[in-house]
């Protein structure tokens, strides 16, 4: 009996004690001591964790009164966590965000200007090419809120990667990559016949379908499910249907690696020499490098075009504004110091970033700085005229779009609808036209309805803001083309 009693008592005491200990344990750690300023930066870049640690160390060396705490949270958790952080007044000093643009961030009161005064000096903006700071994109009422981080000429998806070893085994000349859809099929036929490898490592699971999709559709149509020329969601338009039919044809012929794989799997499949071709973006060389697959083992080539010729391009968007200064920062001065430091084109940040070949920054002379052979090839391809073109931006046509939620709301419901329609078409063999009809109808109705309601509420918005009839799909829609 005695042991029982003691046991129960001990259990309860321990529970209470641990709560107490836990409650007290944290009271000692305040918001940093004395003169030391701690800046928190959040993003979702696990592959850059060591780089960020190194950056923080160097910065503190140069600015002993400021320490940097750079955290990486996985993307899915980040999207839930950051809003909660803002709600509870514990947001970081600087954060990564490219899910919505400037107007939404201002609307949510998440951001403040980059510099304490609001305006930035000319020698700061000079670090970027002309036209990088635009009202509505990263400038509002003369105050600068953001800066392009990645540039958008080379940075993006839609490049073709060829495995040297597989091409050699297949007796193919890697310096003469397939250029048309027919070339691609012939290449695949040869790879399948002469090697044990698969032809294309194409992820088709959920949103990862975008890797093969963007690589192929970009030569046909310049959009991401929305046609800015006509103002229509266009998943079921002839160009899209034809392109997807080609993917289905490749699949049927056994040219896509079997399985409903995700992007990680497909990347490794390619890196392991189990597939000859892989479609992905500017970031992938650094991913492979971290996994021990160096850039001398593969070649980057332009995406393939339909035999009838190219009718579209990859879309360049103003989405390079990735790091924002939080409205809740208590150290705007220190933050501004850090931003100036990290955007120094000849600074430590840039040097180390390029050393790891993470990508191409907007404020750096990439021609000079890029040393990684794969990135160099990517730059050559991306710079070809008509390979990547600037998309029209409704916000620049109608300033009231900043206050409109119709478009984001149209995308919010069933966000993966397009990819689901493709996946269904791929396994069932149905044309994309039929599996995609519902989602296109839903989105189009939501957008038109939403704009109508907002217009009735006094906003100057209409479908006209989303329509650019004078645009040529393979040319930049430059800032001077917007009606003033």
């Amino acid at each position, binding site marked *: 009996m005695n042991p029982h009693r003691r*046991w129960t008592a001990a*259990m309860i005491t321990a529970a209470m004690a*641990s709560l107490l*200990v836990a*409650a007290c344990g944290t009271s000692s*750690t305040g918001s940093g001591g004395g003169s030391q300023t701690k800046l928190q930066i959040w993003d979702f870049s*696990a592959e850059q964790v060591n780089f960020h640690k190194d950056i923080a160390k160097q910065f503190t060396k140069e600015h002993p009164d400021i320490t940097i705490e750079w955290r*990486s949270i996985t*993307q899915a958790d980040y999207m839930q966590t950051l809003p909660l952080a803002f709600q509870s007044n514990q947001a970081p000093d600087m954060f990564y965000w490219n899910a919505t643009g400037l107007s939404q961030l201002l609307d949510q009161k998440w951001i403040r200007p980059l510099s304490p005064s609001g305006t930035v000096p000319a020698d700061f903006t000079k670090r970027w090419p002309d036209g990088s700071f635009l009202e509505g994109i990263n400038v509002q009422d003369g105050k600068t809120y953001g800066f392009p981080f990645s540039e958008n000429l080379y940075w993006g998806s839609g490049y073709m990667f060829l495995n040297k070893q597989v091409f050699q085994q297949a007796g193919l000349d890697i310096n003469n990559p397939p250029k048309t859809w027919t070339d691609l099929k012939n290449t695949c036929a040869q790879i399948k016949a002469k090697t044990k490898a698969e032809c294309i490592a194409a992820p088709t699971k959920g949103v990862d379908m975008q890797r093969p999709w963007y690589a192929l559709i970009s030569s046909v149509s310049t959009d991401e499910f929305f046609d800015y020329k006509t103002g229509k969601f266009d998943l079921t338009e002839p160009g899209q249907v034809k392109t997807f039919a080609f993917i289905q044809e490749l699949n049927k012929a056994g040219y896509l690696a079997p399985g409903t794989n995700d992007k990680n799997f497909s990347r490794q*499949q390619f890196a392991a020499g189990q597939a000859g071709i892989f479609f992905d973006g500017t970031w992938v060389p650094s991913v492979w490098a971290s996994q021990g697959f160096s850039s001398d083992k593969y070649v980057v080539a332009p995406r393939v075009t339909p035999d009838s010729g190219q009718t579209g391009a990859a879309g360049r968007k103003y989405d390079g504004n990735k790091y924002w200064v939080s409205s809740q920062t208590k150290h705007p001065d220190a933050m501004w110091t850090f931003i100036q430091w990290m955007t120094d084109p000849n600074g430590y940040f840039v040097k180390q970033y390029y050393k790891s070949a993470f990508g191409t920054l907007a404020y750096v002379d990439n021609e000079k700085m890029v040393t990684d052979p794969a990135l160099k090839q990517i730059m050559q391809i991306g710079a070809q005229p008509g390979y990547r073109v600037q998309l029209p931006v409704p916000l620049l046509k109608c300033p009231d779009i900043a206050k409109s939620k119709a478009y984001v709301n149209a995308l919010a419901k069933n966000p993966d609808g397009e990819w689901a329609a493709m996946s269904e078409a791929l396994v069932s063999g149905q044309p994309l036209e039929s599996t995609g009809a519902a989602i296109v109808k839903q989105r189009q109705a939501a957008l038109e309805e939403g704009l109508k309601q907002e217009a009735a509420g006094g906003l100057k918005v209409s479908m006209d803001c989303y329509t650019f009839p004078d645009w040529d799909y393979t040319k930049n829609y430059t800032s001077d083309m917007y009606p003033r």
Partner: protein
Amino acid sequence: MATITKPTGRSQAVRANLIALPILLVVGLVWIYPFLWTISAAFKTQAGMFTSGASLVPDQLNFDNFVRAWVNAGFSGYFVNTVLYSVASTLVELVKAALCGYVLARYEFPGRTLLYRMIVGTLFIPVASIIVPQFVLIEQLGLLNTRAGVILAMSGGAGALYVLLFVGFFSSVPTDLFEAAKLDGAGFLKTFRLILPLAKPVIAVVVIFQFISSWNEFNIPLVFTLGQPDLQNLAVGMLSFQGEHATDWTGFAAGMTISFLPMLMIFLFFQSYFTRGLAGATKG
């Protein structure tokens, strides 16, 4: 005793073992194969993990992944938090579930049926969908960014299941046992103390599951310690292996392998609680 249940005694037991053991071992090995695969992945390179397919033999023999896990996942720093959260939330969970389950099973009081039905009814609510209100509560209590807040949130949500287990257990304790205790003059508290040790199997269940789930929990520590990253646990640290463009699976596997150990130890230890709780109790 054994001779009563098994009249033919030893030889039959040996024969039964000879049949059952090989079968169980083979099934068990297939069963834990994916588990072993995870451990072996902790020794492989990324490429090796991919190309080796089903093989359990690593393509290298070094501890690079473990070193990376130790640093990236912040094992050295987060380990103490993880242990504290797991132990404390398990204790809280155990105490509240045992007390409540006992009362619900043994006593009739106004609102008992209502409470029971509510507990069962709320089982159906997906826990993930209520984290925002929980967050608001912890914030109002001023416990955001404290260990106490994390522990409270961890042990607040899941309790209903354990209460039901205790109710199930206590209501199957023979009534004569309570009568006997009463005849001995035992009061409310004393009766509980007499009966509780019989619930060892249920206690073991609660400890094992609450410990493992708090050990692996990452949503709560992540969200409730946003402003104080040094209060986070290993599972959150492990998230740093998953990035926008790549996932470091071998580092992740190494991190997992290190953190398997405490969980297996808890399991092995509390297994000994699976003794016949009621054996002999009815005699006394």
